[in-house]
């Protein structure tokens, strides 16, 4: 009799422990990432997961009062531990929610593995437009802005300023080429003209060479002596050379793009709309400023928490439906509620135009109208989307 009672109690105990508990897997990349805030900042070892950690703490703050518990588990894809192994480990833990900071290829691999249909994957690391368009994956949600959203945001601001003639400098990597292509589309969409486009063909220089500036001082004016333009727009996603251009170009022109005036989902310079609170929470937790990928990971974890609170459930299917439903909104510290687009799962959000030390502007710019949401003037709108078609 006693034994049965004990067993019953244990079962109840186990059941209680899992009721209203939501576990989220964060999958990141191994290795160092250079800081988007410049060469003087230390390289980052915990990009993404650091944001997810603050997100789970925020979720649990509310959860304490609503009786829900949120758990975060960290997985890293590396040479030794490939995508398949990581996916298997996540499935073995019965985790259904995955926030990922992976490149397009690895993300696609994760999403197409057998058994992966059970995962609700939130992309916090790959800005590729293909993932929101012709190569979109069913059910995937994106909290990181697409490249199209970033270049559209920049184009709106530059055109608002009447800086319509752009000199585009594109770096050599595939990512840089994709960014330049997005710039071309945005220029066309908003009425800017790319007057010259050049590829950056110099070898990446060591920034700290003893007399590094001397070479740059002669190389860059020669490279940038082109037809007149209003802005020098640079496509350098890895941050290898973009910072060399400011103050050195042949003509005195502002630098924008991946350097200078940067269109981004997040920046340390955002102190508006209560963002200081998030910036300080992150700095305290991670010991460094929050990067755009950290923010996208935080946003994904917060979106799951917010959905769990509002839908009052931790059931994965109910949550997946709620996230894509018309009632879902998450506070992103950018001035208005953020939600997911029905046609491609991309989170619609304001995009910051960040200077090196202060926030310069936020897109969408005033005057760009839209039938349902001005945020949808950034990136691919419903009628243009190739996702699912």
């Amino acid at each position, binding site marked *: 009799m006693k034994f049965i009672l004990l067993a019953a109690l244990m079962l109840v105990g186990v059941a209680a422990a899992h009721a209203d508990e939501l576990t989220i897997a964060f999958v990141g990349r191994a290795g160092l990432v250079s800081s988007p805030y410049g060469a003087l900042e230390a390289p980052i070892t915990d990009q993404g997961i650091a944001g997810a950690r603050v997100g789970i703490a*925020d979720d649990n*703050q*509310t959860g304490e*009062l*609503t009786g829900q518990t949120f758990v975060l588990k960290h997985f890293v894809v590396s040479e030794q531990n490939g995508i398949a192994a990581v996916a298997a480990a996540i499935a073995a833990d019965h985790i259904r929610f995955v926030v990922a900071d992976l490149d397009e290829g690895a993300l696609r691999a994760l999403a197409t593995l057998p058994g992966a249909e059970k995962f609700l994957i939130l992309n916090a690391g790959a800005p590729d437009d293909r993932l929101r368009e012709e190569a979109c994956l069913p059910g995937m949600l994106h909290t990181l802005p697409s490249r199209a959203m970033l270049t559209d945001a920049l184009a709106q601001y530059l055109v608002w300023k009447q800086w319509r003639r752009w000199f585009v400098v594109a770096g050599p990597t595939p990512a840089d080429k994709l960014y330049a292509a997005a710039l071309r589309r945005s220029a066309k969409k908003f009425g800017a003209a790319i007057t010259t486009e050049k590829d950056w063909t110099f070898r990446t220089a060591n920034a700290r060479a003893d007399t590094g500036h001397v070479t740059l001082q002669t190389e860059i004016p020669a490279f940038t002596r082109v037809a007149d333009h209003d802005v020098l727009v640079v496509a350098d996603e890895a941050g290898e050379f973009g910072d060399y251009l400011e103050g050195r170009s042949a003509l005195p022109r502002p630098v924008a793009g991946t350097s200078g005036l940067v269109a981004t989902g997040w920046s340390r310079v955002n102190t508006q709309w*209560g963002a*200081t*609170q998030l910036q*300080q929470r992150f700095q305290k937790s991670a010991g460094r400023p929050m990067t755009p990928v950290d923010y996208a990971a935080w946003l994904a974890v917060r979106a799951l928490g*917010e959905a769990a*609170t509002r839908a009052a459930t931790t059931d994965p299917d109910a949550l997946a439906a709620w996230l894509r439903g018309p009632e879902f*909104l*998450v*506070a992103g510290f950018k*001035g*208005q*509620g953020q939600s997911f687009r029905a046609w491609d799962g991309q989170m619609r959000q304001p995009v910051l135009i960040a200077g090196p030390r202060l926030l310069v502007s936020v897109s969408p710019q005033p005057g760009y109208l*839209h039938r*349902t*949401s*001005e*945020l949808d003037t950034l990136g691919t709108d419903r009628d243009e989307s190739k996702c699912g078609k």
Partner: protein
Amino acid sequence: MRLSAAPSSRTPTPDPSPQGGGELTACAAIAARFLAVSFFAIAAINPTIADTIYVSNEQDNTISVIDSASLSVTATIEVGRRPRGIALSADRRLVYVAVGDDDRIDIVDRAARKVIGSLPSGEDPEAFAVHPDGRRLFVSNENENRVSVVDIAAGNIAIEIRVGSEPEGVAVSPDGNLVVNTSESSSMVHVIDAASYRMLASVLVDARPRSAQFTPDGKSIWVSSELRGTVSVIDVAARKITAKVSFAVPGIARENIQAVGLVLTRDGTRAFVALGPANRVAEIDTRTLKVTRYYLVGQRVWQVALSSDEKRLYTANGNSGDVSVIDLDAREVVKSIRVGRSPWGLAVAP
């Protein structure tokens, strides 16, 4: 214009056109009516109670002082950095203003029109409430997830109450027994005992709750949710939401309707809610919970305040840098007064 008794009762008013006696009396009667209407019109422009309106200018580090008779700025008071929350002391001799970047509350002497001292507030104070007994302030410390209780006479923080994430709106019940506080990030409304500081209840509301106000009978709390653009009515005894008000403005996207500052009339029959980037203030009939009017004011309207006679509503419009004056009897916006940059809150003193 001379405001005298209707002339038709005595000497007929001289009439330019030569008429008989009947027409003369009729014209005099019209003149009398005109004079009477003018008298009342002037009475409306010059309300019987003269108010002083204090406006915190978040970017300028000043307070603009507006005189309700002239509806113009009559003084500008220098205060500490990043002034936001602003309220009168219980005895109305002082104006308290939270200066967030200086981590304190400045005390402005109304007669002297300058800062005469300060109170500790905890970090980065934004919103605070004055207890009607005049002895305490309740200050939200967003970074610390705390509400600081300031002992005014002692000039220190008596206690810190732990609340949800990013506390903001705070108000004291009319009988002084309860304090309500909103947690922006946790979307919670906390009801706290004002004597023991124990948390009595936490109610989940729509995202990013900002202002909380008790109804004059103390039975309900009205809370604005910035993100969702709604106002929830919470029954204090039952500790749950009993009603919700939504807003719709033609041509304004859902995301731009953000409910922020709110105020209720003394008789509890009307509520006014600032709708942020929708640039409007909604007037709500509290009995039907219907919006009876939207007033178009300046850009990014933040906090609102009623005049002492409740015939006017003043609104702080953050992005256009002005204060709108709404005549509540005529039900229209009658004036915009230029103040400093990023006006945030208002305190009205008779």
